[in-house]
């Protein structure tokens, strides 16, 4: 049986619940784009390794073979930390939602308990309030 979901007696959700999805989405997008870059690099690696080592080592300045070898050496240098920026955003998102959880514990549940439990205990029988 479903009943209407009311939230009229508690404060509105903390701002952290709005911020954390942005951090999570940005972090995930960065990690996925690092994969996209790596897929492109994989095709470059495949092209480079179609040439014998002698040809790769002898590639002259300005040739596409040398340029592609340069790409293989340079891209991973920044894609690796870029990926970790993504992971950092994801972990920051988790931290933010935990922060929101803490605020909800204090402002929604904690405040409700402080105000309501004395009222509820007054309405209970003495046996129930003693917990026996």
């Amino acid at each position, binding site marked *: *049986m*479903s*009943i*209407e*979901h*009311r*939230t009229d*007696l*508690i404060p509105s*959700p903390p701002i952290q*619940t709005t911020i*954390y999805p942005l951090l*999570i989405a940005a*972090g*995930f997008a960065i*990690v*996925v784009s*690092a*994969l996209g870059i*790596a897929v492109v*690099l*994989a095709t470059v*690696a*495949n092209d*480079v*390794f*179609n*040439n*014998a*080592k*002698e*040809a790769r080592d002898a590639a002259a300045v300005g040739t596409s073979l040398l340029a592609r070898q340069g790409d*293989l050496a340079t891209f*991973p240098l920044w*894609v690796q930390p870029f*990926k970790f920026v*993504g*992971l950092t955003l*994801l972990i920051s*998102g*988790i931290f933010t*939602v*935990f922060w*929101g*959880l803490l605020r*909800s514990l204090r402002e*929604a*549940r*904690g*405040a*409700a*308990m402080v*105000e*309501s*439990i004395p*009222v*509820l205990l007054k*309405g*209970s029988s003495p046996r*129930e309030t003693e917990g026996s």
Partner: protein
Amino acid sequence: MREMIFGGRAVLTEAQPTGMQKMAGMMWAPMLLMGLMIVFASLGLSVVKANFASDYFGVTKAVREAADAPAYLIDKRQFIESVNVWLPGFQLLGIGLILSAITFSLANILGVFRAGGVQIQKAFGAEPQTITPPITAKLFPMFMMMGLMILIVNLIIAGIIGAIAWDVYGNSVAEINAAAPGSSLLGDQGTVNSYKAWLEPFKFVGLATILVGISLAVHTILQVIRFQGQRIRELAAGN
């Protein structure tokens, strides 16, 4: 629609967690244990690999790269290069299992909140209501499983590429360097290098997917906490 996203309310007759929450209560410990075992096994393998690398680089470059290089040197390089392909994926699978154990623990906490909430409402003689699963509660187990699947698929592909690397590096450095265009040896080198390039970030996508699941699980707890605050006030108001 609103109920699907934020969850509705239902009356529960029994103070019990859901089936998924019960499973999470049993599964978090084995997941954690498996994850720790994998991480420590990876450490052991890395130490072996480091010893082999130390032996390999203990001889001159001329000896290492000669066409008639000693078989023990070729074997060591073969081991190092093959393990280099799949060991990072194996390590991250361990981390993924540990993060999944965290996700299961969060699901377990949700089960405790559900059962405890019903018990308290019954104790006050009120109708035991609970929040029906919001969309975050439905999504977080899926994200966790999808993340683990990515890590497992990554390890399987890395295992296959590791076997190809084993074949490639079973040859002396001189033979590998002399591989002619169109030869299977050069083709296999290309396969190993191109797969290594994309497998490296692929496993991080798996890890990121599990982290998204954790954030959704924490958000679900937050929604339950808010529901409990609302419900306590309703009980005090006599609803």
